[in-house]
């Protein structure tokens, strides 16, 4: 670059060998890859995050398995495992907002925002990195499930389906978290609200008990909760005799639609974090 001064500059800006959409994907990948490299430098976070699903399956699951009838005729641990998988993805994704605020406080976010990358590419890049994190979580939960003798299937189509649901679920909740971060703006407030948000999302869903057991008002909330459809899809795909209550394509449509909506909202709000 230094051998050929000023004219190069004009050249670059005129000649764009990458087509628009390829450029967009490059920018999404740039953001996602940076996050993945960070995870590669320090994977300890993945292991500490594995503790939570382990505790739910080992402590909560073992006790609740003694209660007959929660999961109909099936075994409760089989019922619980997909719920805990969805939960671990949710809990990992929901703290993406904290990371976003942290990046803003440091100044790293300014570097993203002055780049020519479309704001939605930046949001999607973060969402994609969350998907990778979610998939790493899933491997750990699968390991735990096998150890506990849960009836997990390893049919390639099912594995692929689970991966898709995990990826979209992670993208959805990390983008939701980013929107919350754009609203609350400080880490302290986010810490408070993060707890307040994750618990209702988790409990007002079919993750650890069927919606049929809920009172009417809670049922209504659960039907409006994307986590319900995430869990429903995982329940159908993860277990040997799994079945979906609402239909896999319905689950997937809901999740994709909500994700697209959230990405669009986040792309509008994200730039305001640096002002």
């Amino acid at each position, binding site marked *: *670059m*230094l051998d050929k*001064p*000023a004219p*190069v*500059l004009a050249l*670059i*800006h005129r000649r*764009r*060998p*990458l087509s628009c959409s390829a*450029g967009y994907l*490059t*920018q999404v*990948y*740039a*953001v996602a*890859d*940076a996050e993945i*490299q*960070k995870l590669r*430098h*320090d994977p300890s976070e993945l292991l500490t995050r594995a503790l939570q699903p382990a505790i739910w399956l080992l402590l909560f699951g073992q006790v609740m398995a003694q209660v007959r009838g929660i999961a109909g005729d099936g075994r409760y641990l089989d019922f619980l495992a997909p719920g805990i998988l969805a939960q671990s993805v949710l809990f990992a994704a929901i703290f993406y907002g904290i990371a976003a605020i942290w990046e803003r*406080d*440091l*100044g*790293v976010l*300014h*570097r*993203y*925002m*002055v*780049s*020519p*990358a*479309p704001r939605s590419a930046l949001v999607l890049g973060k969402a994609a990195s969350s998907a990778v994190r979610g998939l790493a979580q899933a491997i750990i939960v699968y390991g735990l499930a096998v150890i506990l003798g849960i009836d997990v299937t390893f049919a390639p189509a099912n594995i692929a389906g689970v991966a898709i649901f995990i990826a979209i679920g992670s993208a959805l909740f990390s983008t939701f978290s980013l929107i919350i971060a754009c609203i609350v703006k400080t880490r302290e407030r986010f810490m408070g609200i993060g707890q307040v948000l994750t618990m209702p999302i988790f409990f007002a869903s079919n993750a650890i008990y069927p919606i049929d057991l809920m009172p009417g008002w809670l049922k209504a909330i659960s039907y409006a909760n994307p986590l319900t459809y995430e869990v429903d899809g995982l329940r159908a795909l993860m277990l040997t005799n799994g079945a979906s209550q609402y239909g896999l394509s319905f689950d997937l449509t809901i999740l994709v639609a909500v994700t697209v909506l959230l990405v669009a909202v986040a792309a509008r709000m994200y*730039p305001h974090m*640096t*002002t």
Partner: protein
Amino acid sequence: MSVSSQADEMSIIETDALTRRFGDLTAVDCVSLQVSSREIFGLIGPNGAGKSTLIKMLTTLLPPSSGTARIAGFDVVSHPAQVRAHIGYVPQLLSADGALTAYENLLLSARLYLIPRKEREMRINAALKLMDMESAAHRQVQGFSGGMIRRLEIAQSMMHEPVVMFMDEPTVGLDPVARRAVWDHVRQIREELGTTILITTHLMDEADELCDRIGVLHAGRLQEVGTPQELKARIGPDATLDDVFAEITGTEIVSGGSYRDVRQTRASARAHS
């Protein structure tokens, strides 16, 4: 400053009555400024004078309340994407990612600026070489000294060969040796790439030594613009830039900015030291 061609005479940065208000506070008040191609322009002023707000508007991070600004011919409000493609920005805050290596930070920038895949390696290596950090390429940035982080951030901001570079207090928190190294690199970028550079500082010796022209910002208004020599000559024969600064900013006590300013300055000073 020698002007080599017609094209070089055009203003690369051009603002007209640029204004930004936050509620009742007018942070930047009717600033009209022209910076020519290949110029190193220094913006000086006390804390809270509006330097960072002005830079944020010029880098498209903050929309103006009124007035216009054009960078390399592109309006910051109507064509933000084109403006972004033509500028480099070194924020006052720590913008290199500490959890990544220098190489990974540069790769991130190369991809965001859509530098073609074939050229990435070459440009990253050239940037590392220009900033004297080839040996540190694959080390994580959190182990770097403040001077090295600054040089990396400058490298990240110039890889796409921007027409203009904005540097917000690039030497804050650096020791004199590291500061001088940054100055040398800034001059080198201008010489080798022909980049126009706008720099904010509150160090008078930095402004005096590095900048071709200086603008003095006070209470959001651009009070004076001129070469360091011109500004000093206006005050008196033996005047220094400190005298110019004191004259323009008046008897008002420089209070040191808001809590947020102090927190940010110290945080970045800590990170960069």
